[in-house]
């Protein structure tokens, strides 16, 4: 269940991951400029196929990583990334800058396709028998000391600072939900905790995060 790290050491976050040699759309002329996701979406809305290709080259490995982590099937994950790019192309014109970043929009479109796929198929979680034995024996007080299932501190940002204030077990609920795409039941099974408790942890974590993030 451990997570491979993208960044080995606690380095400041790179300005924007980018293939700087690639012009996104014809508006982008200045030399090394970060990838302009907003311009890429506008160009997609105008029907410029090259803009979608640039987006694909820029983000498809990251999107595939996010999707595959949720659906846990390589072929299905590629199907979903395929559908996501078709959707991005068809819906690019509906993207509204006032509502959030273009990069965030692209990830949201893709992530929700993956989540819909696993929720609609009511995935049965297949647990490693060893892991299951381990967690079901964990005593309730033992959860308080439980270590982080995710090595999340390497890339600090606002959300990370607020996650730090949660107990590790609640933090893990948030990660298992967002990153692994686990349902309440799956998290409960994974942690060996009662379903109602997990639901309450997640609800309270969201409230605490919102108070902290503002």
């Amino acid at each position: 269940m451990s997570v491979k790290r993208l960044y080995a050491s606690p380095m400041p976050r790179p300005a924007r991951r980018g293939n700087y040699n690639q012009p996104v759309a014809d508006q982008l002329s200045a030399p090394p400029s970060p990838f302009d996701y907003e311009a890429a979406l506008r160009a997609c809305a105008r029907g410029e196929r090259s803009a979608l290709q640039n987006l694909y080259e820029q983000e498809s490995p990251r999107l595939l990583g996010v999707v595959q982590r949720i659906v846990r099937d390589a072929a299905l994950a590629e199907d979903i990334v395929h559908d996501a790019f078709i959707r991005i192309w068809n819906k690019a014109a509906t993207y509204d800058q006032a509502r959030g970043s273009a990069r965030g929009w692209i990830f949201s479109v893709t992530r929700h396709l993956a989540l819909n796929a696993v929720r609609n198929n009511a995935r049965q979680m297949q647990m490693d028998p060893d892991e299951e034995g381990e967690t079901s024996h964990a005593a309730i007080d033992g959860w308080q000391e439980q270590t982080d299932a995710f090595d999340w501190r390497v890339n600090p940002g606002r959300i990370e600072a607020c996650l730090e204030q949660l107990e590790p077990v609640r933090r893990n609920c948030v990660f298992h939900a967002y990153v692994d795409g686990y349902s309440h039941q799956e998290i409960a099974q994974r942690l060996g905790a009662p379903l109602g408790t997990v639901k309450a942890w997640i609800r309270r974590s969201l409230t605490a995060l919102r108070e902290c993030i503002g």
Partner: protein
Amino acid sequence: MNTELNDSGESLHELAGEYVLGTLPASQREDVERRLPVDPELQAAVDYWEARLLHLTDLVEPQTPSPRLWARIQRSLDESARQTVPVSRTRQSKWWDSLSLWRGFAAAGMAATLVLGSLLLTRTISDSSPTWLVVLATPQNLAPGWVMQASNQSREIELIPLGVTELPPDKALQLWTKAEGWQAPVSLGLVKPGEPVKIRLDELPPLQPNQLFELTLEQPTGSPTGKPTGPIQFIGRAAKVI
């Protein structure tokens, strides 16, 4: 569940947060997705969580897609581009049951009537001037919303609405154009929904085939950046009428 849905801002935020986290069961996910287009508060709460949690996607190691994936995406785009009307092949419903298809036909018929009518008029006045036409349609279902016509001589374009466009309060429609090779779209000003308008093109080069026109949703005073920022409402390309 519905009482919970109609509850205070706090539970709205919980619902939005759990939707973005992904913990909602399928039926509730569908509920949220149905509500989003018509519930700005829920949409704002979802936007809030999407933006805050996005950073956590960095926890996942990227995976290199197979080289075939991009080719597959392109094939799918080619296929849907070949279909003149956007009827999804994957859907099981019969095409003649599609409301948007017939709506599109009706609107296209209306547009054609207007276009041919205006053509007849312009023909009788001057047979020599080449005329440009643009049908501006919604990007989603290609329903025509505006027709634009211009003659090279008059250096003026006329924008004719085909219906009244509903705008959100405190938003305006801004008209843009971009010909091939231009660095960025150029603003042609704000347009009132449902009202025909004539616009002088004195400062622009003559119209070109395929020149793009679009209407975007902007602040009442127009885009603050001088470039389109809001979603595209209508879009079309110029065609020369022989």
